[in-house]
């Protein structure tokens, strides 16, 4: 129980990541691949956010009365992973945008978003 409580967040992220990864490489539909990609990236974000979590700490916004006195780092959640993940979210939405644009282009070229049907048309 201790062990499960200690690590379950990480396990869930691994599981989500497997789902996303599976969709990315096995799914035939291009949009599904993209959905998988989103899940995959979100899982990584979950992983990072879990790194930052800290028992008994609050959100990383310094309270105003703490100005003068020394600030105890254990009192606030580690902000660094949050910063990194803001970037990762931005990256994922950018990738999503470009991917969808490509899907539109592919659709106009082949009339379908199923990979096997496209490959059939190419041959």
């Amino acid at each position: 129980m201790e062990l499960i409580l200690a690590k379950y967040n990480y396990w869930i992220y691994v599981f989500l990541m497997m789902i996303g990864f599976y969709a990315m490489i096995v799914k035939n539909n291009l949009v599904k691949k993209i959905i998988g990609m989103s899940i995959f990236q979100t899982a990584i974000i979950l992983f990072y956010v879990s790194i930052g979590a800290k028992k008994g700490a609050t959100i990383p916004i310094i309270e105003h009365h703490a100005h003068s006195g020394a600030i105890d780092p254990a009192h606030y959640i580690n902000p660094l992973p949050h910063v990194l993940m803001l970037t990762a979210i931005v990256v994922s939405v950018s990738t999503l945008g470009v991917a969808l644009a490509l899907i539109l282009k592919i659709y106009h070229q082949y009339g379908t978003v199923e990979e096997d049907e496209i490959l059939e048309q190419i041959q």
Partner: protein
Amino acid sequence: MKAIGLITVFSLGMALFYATIDFPPWADPQSPASLHVSPHYIQETMKETDVSNVVTSVLADYRGFDTMFETSVIFTAGIAVILILRKYSKKEDEKFLPEVSEEAEPDIIIQTVTRIIVPFIQLFALYVIAHGHHSPGGGFQGGVILGASFILLAISFNLKAMLRRISERKDILLGGIGLLIYSGIGALCVLLGANFLNYKVLHLIIPEASQVEARSYGILGVEIGVAIAVMAIMIAIYANLSSDGKYDKGL
């Protein structure tokens, strides 16, 4: 293919699972991640940057360089979508039409509500941008919300309605300007003799500001740049995706 995929997925899962064994327990205050670099940010943010939201100060100052590129990732995506989809000539014939083609009737309730609510959304967005120093939020979130307000217009009316308020040219211009503000502030620091993005030298040109306050202002300036760029690019991506790059009628 499916079998190979499953094997790959499974082995990845196993590997990652194996790695978790060595992780420090979840939310452990004694984990290396909590002890090595982050205490500095938490302890010094007020003294060094005068920003109480540590995420903002790290985002826009300590790791401001990352954020600059992060914003340019968005910009890149916008330009990329334009490059891929935008069709300038009208006559390009469509071989395959979208399958969902029925046009929705304009709904008066939605339109009215939108008209009322959009200014408030934008006001809120501005608040998020400006108040990012002290509360969750900042340029990025605010920019997205601003962009979303325009997208909401486009959805409930049509694309033309949005383009009347913010044309394509203006949109691209704003995207470039937003990033120019960010990198320009950085370059300004170089011109003032410090390293890139070292906002503290801005006190030389901002009247009555100490070096720490200059950092705070620098962060604000940067956030504004981010917000403008993000808003513009979100609009651009939506406009292209929803109209197939033709900018005609949208969804």
